[in-house]
């Protein structure tokens, strides 16, 4: 009986280090899975999309018409590349998504500004034409009696 108890006790003592490490290991594993350090897929697709949208924004004169949004997008893209190189894929993915949406916003703002300026310009030209035609039509009746 005492030997049985003794062997059980010995088995329990052998199991103890395993049990001691099992729970902390599981907790660490869960924390690692939930943290931003978890290794997912490299966000190459969204990164190249962000690069394309940044180029499109530059072509839409965002440098001149939406400089702050474009600058922010460029900074996010660079930060995304750094995070990607360091293997922090979740962070890289988020930064690339922000870069992409900010580049899209910069382009949208620039395009809106260009169209608004074109509308203003057209309105001014029409006003000038109207004033000119009113002036000429006002001067015409005074010339008419002179001819007679």
């Amino acid at each position, binding site marked *: 009986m005492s030997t049985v108890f003794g062997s059980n006790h010995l088995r329990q003592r052998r199991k103890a280090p395993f049990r001691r490490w099992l729970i902390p290991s599981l907790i660490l594993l869960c924390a690692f899975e939930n943290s931003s350090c978890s290794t997912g897929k490299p966000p190459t697709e969204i990164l190249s999309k962000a690069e394309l949208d940044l180029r499109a924004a530059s072509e839409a004169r965002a440098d001149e018409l939406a400089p702050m949004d474009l600058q922010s997008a460029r900074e996010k893209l660079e930060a995304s590349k750094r995070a990607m190189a360091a293997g922090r894929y979740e962070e890289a993915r988020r930064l690339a998504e922000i870069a992409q949406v900010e580049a*899209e916003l910069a382009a*949208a703002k620039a395009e*809106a500004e260009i169209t608004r300026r074109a509308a203003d310009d057209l309105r001014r030209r029409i006003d000038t034409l109207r004033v000119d035609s009113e002036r000429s039509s006002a001067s015409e009746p005074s010339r008419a009696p002179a001819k007679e």
Partner: protein
Amino acid sequence: MKLSIFFDRRAVGAALLLTASLSLGCGAAVRNPALERAKDVYNRARQDREVVARAAVALDRARLTLEQAERVWSAEKDVVEVEHLAFVAEKRVEIARATARRRQAADEIQQLNPQRD
């Protein structure tokens, strides 16, 4: 000794149950400030007739991002991801507003063009 182990287990079990029930109970009420702000920004744009009429697709993209943020918040309570998605949704609302402005100006050009001729 045995009794104390039993007691410990019961205490741990009760604590775990209490924590789980509290987190479940509070889960519905807990709100994410960034998500709430993004929803507010989106709802204000939804009330703007110009934005709804001229930038429906852009506004819909904002709605989809918001819905994704809500799903992540209710399922995972991932604060970092939800704040990120809320930020993206707000930017998408801004894009919708800029798109509406551009289309409004383009419409104005179309209306003015016959007058020029």
